[in-house]
């Protein structure tokens, strides 16, 4: 059935059944592949997107539940100054390895800095605990968030 989706500032009409995870609409229908499939059960965070500015796991969010919301994906988060600062920090520190989880890491990091501009290491660990990285780039994710915080403060 036809559903309306507001994503990255544009309104899309998508053909999807109720109960379809937002993840698969984003990836397979809209062909925006920056949002990743990692586990399908909201336990790795690779599929993280923003719903009205808050990070959510798109693999466990049904399409009919986001009709009135503004969805932002990794492809557009850099248009915001916090997103741009996180992406700049990620490049400065070479946070990534395989990179497959990093869209989700960036989306969560932006969520954290949006509500806490100067997080401590403990606060970062707490907030980011749902985003798995099998390459274990965690040390640089922590440093990257702190660097982004400094960029935003400057």
């Amino acid at each position, binding site marked *: 059935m036809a559903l309306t989706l507001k994503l990255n500032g544009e309104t899309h009409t998508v053909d999807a059944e109720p109960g379809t995870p937002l993840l698969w609409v984003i990836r397979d229908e809209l062909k925006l*592949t920056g949002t990743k499939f990692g586990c399908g059960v909201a336990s*790795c965070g690779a599929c993280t997107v923003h719903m009205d500015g808050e990070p959510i796991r798109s693999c466990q969010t049904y399409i009919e539940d986001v009709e009135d919301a503004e969805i932002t994906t990794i492809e557009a988060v850099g248009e915001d100054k916090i997103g741009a600062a996180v992406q700049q920090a990620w490049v400065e520190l070479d946070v990534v390895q395989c990179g497959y989880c990093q869209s989700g890491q960036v989306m969560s990091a932006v969520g954290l800095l949006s509500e806490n501009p100067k997080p401590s290491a403990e606060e970062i660990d707490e907030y980011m605990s749902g985003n798995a990285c099998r390459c274990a*780039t965690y040390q640089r994710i922590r440093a990257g968030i702190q660097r982004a915080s400094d960029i935003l403060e400057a």
Partner: protein
Amino acid sequence: MTINTSRRGFLKGAAAAGAVLLIGARTDGALAAASSETAQLNPFVKIDADGTVTAIVKHFEKGQGPATGLPTLIAEEIGLRMDQIEYEFAPSNPEVYNNLLFGPFQGTGGSTAMANSWLQYRQAGAAAREMLIAAAAADWGVDASGITIEEGIIKAGDKSAPIGDFVASAAQLEPPVEPRLKAPAEFKLIGNEAVRRKDSAIKGNGQAMYAMDVHLPNQMVAMIKRPESRGGLVTGFDDSASKDVKGYISAAVLPNQAGVAVYAENTWAAIQARDALEVEWDLSAAETRDSDQIEAEIMSALDAEPTYNVNKADVASVAAAIDGADTVVEKTFYFPLLAHAPMEPLNCTIEQTADGNIVLHDGSQMPTGPHMAYQQIFGLPPEKIQINTMLAGGSFGRRATPDADYQVEAALAFVVTDRSRPVKLVWTREDDIRSGYYRPAFGHKVRIGIDEGGNIVGWQHQVAGQSIMKGTAFESFAVHDGVDHSSIEGIADSPYQIPGMALGLTDTPKATSVLWWRSVGHTHTAYVMETMMDLAANAAGRDPVEFRLSHLTDSGDADQQRKAGVLKLAAEKADWGNVPEGRSQGIAVHKSFGSYVAEVVEVSGDAEEGIRIEKVTCAVDCGIAVNPDVVRAQMEGGIGYGIGHVMRDQITLTGGSVDQFNFPDYEPLRIGDIAAIDVHIIPSAEAPTGVGEPGTPPSAPALANAIAKLSGVQVTNLPMAENGVSFA
């Protein structure tokens, strides 16, 4: 590790327009540059007339850095900035793009990407430099010796031009037989801390394209319904419920009866349609054992005479020396099955082109594997099969199976269709955890005798587990006199001077499909060697660092000296022995893949209330660190991978069926598990050795040693969380 490329020679080619310079190696050792060959030239470096330089990277990128490292080698030798060189992944061609350590086989593994490319890619870059300079010398009428290339500009006195100006004329020249390589003192990029990864930006903004991101026009998504227990065969299926799923197309039994392929218009429909599919199985040949039985078989093998006396030791005299020692330390160990669980679930896409070629889009770790398998499956000559290598979302060994398992599965799912639509095979995380290939389970039994002076007088070591290499195409490479080296690597070839060592090995029967897993045999051998060294040091009443150094005293043995070097540096940087109240340190040092790594783990808390890992200090000697920050990142990642699994992961079987499903019960290392990692690189003039794997082996024993010191809990069966240790 000896790699000699000096006699391979170089080929150059000129495109029809004469505006591209290509430098590649030829396989017959002789030098030729006939124009008829140029069309078939598979280059390492390509320079367009506009000066764009592209490194053709023969190794796949799973995060370990060759898409940065190999361009660095070429940019260094030509004389470019890093932003003046691009990269492309090489096509599948086992003659030109082979791993020089694997023979005629293209593949990435064993932490060899830099080690085997080091001379080859520098020579390709140096050949390009000399040809560009020769072209400029002829044009300007100056001696080549007075011409330099820096930051992509050719200069001689007051003359200068971008390299693109000389591409056409350089392409007419013969390539040099042995181009002069820059001396380390001339390096501007190799070893430069400021060089950044070339794939950072695209991986932070969603633009990076992995195989999972392939969307070919009109493609179908296929998922495979597999038996609960490995070895089950399909006897029939009912897809009536699948037909209710919108987007479901059809289902078909794979030709080998190993499963049913479910085809759908998109991934979500494939997931739902597969869930709805009913399959009848013949489980008569399926695995039915519990993992407890597999463990019991391994542990009982340790009590019997080993099949192989690996180091041809006089076992009776070693045993007698231990029996007569002042103190004897004895332990048995068990290591469970482990899944690799790379972040990107396995997948690949197959299409047939209008001219009958088969194209595979894959994060391909060993392109030669599927390339050979596809010749058989599709009945095509090699040139009709192309492999488009995509970025890979991790691997840790999983994307390199000797039988090309998932690529073959995709091909089987494709051959039963009419081939009019591309097929994208997708595994879910559950498929990955439950249907995978695993680090084999291993058992060890060790007895060490220590004399009155606190010195080792005998070390008797038995290993039992399932061979990874036997029965694969790699058997002749890795198995000698019956001994699969990957079962005992890290013990038999340890640089430690251990008097009276006897090493025995018994292969245990096939329990499940097994596979190399980041650092292969070293995953268990380093744990045993380094926790036993601590136990021996304790029994001798000696400091663990001093005790280890006393077994690395041969000043004429570079292996011992380099191992001692990292041990001393890690201890120094960790301020060994000086920890705040309530904390302890553990140390381990191990050589693997040609590199030496020592790690100190500092913990707080206690085993009952929860251990917290406060800091890991690492020292690595990997020869010349081409990209030091990539080396550092690989150590950080290797440490996390090793520690994460020994903390709480295992794969277990009940009735042959895997008990774990997804990340909730195969829990990845999380950001809060390790508070800090500090990596130090030993300066070196030696050729580069591995970095992708060597960070992993010492991490787990260093943690175990720290926990034992803090809480007295000596973990010999893994994972730690199931054997008396809780984590904060």
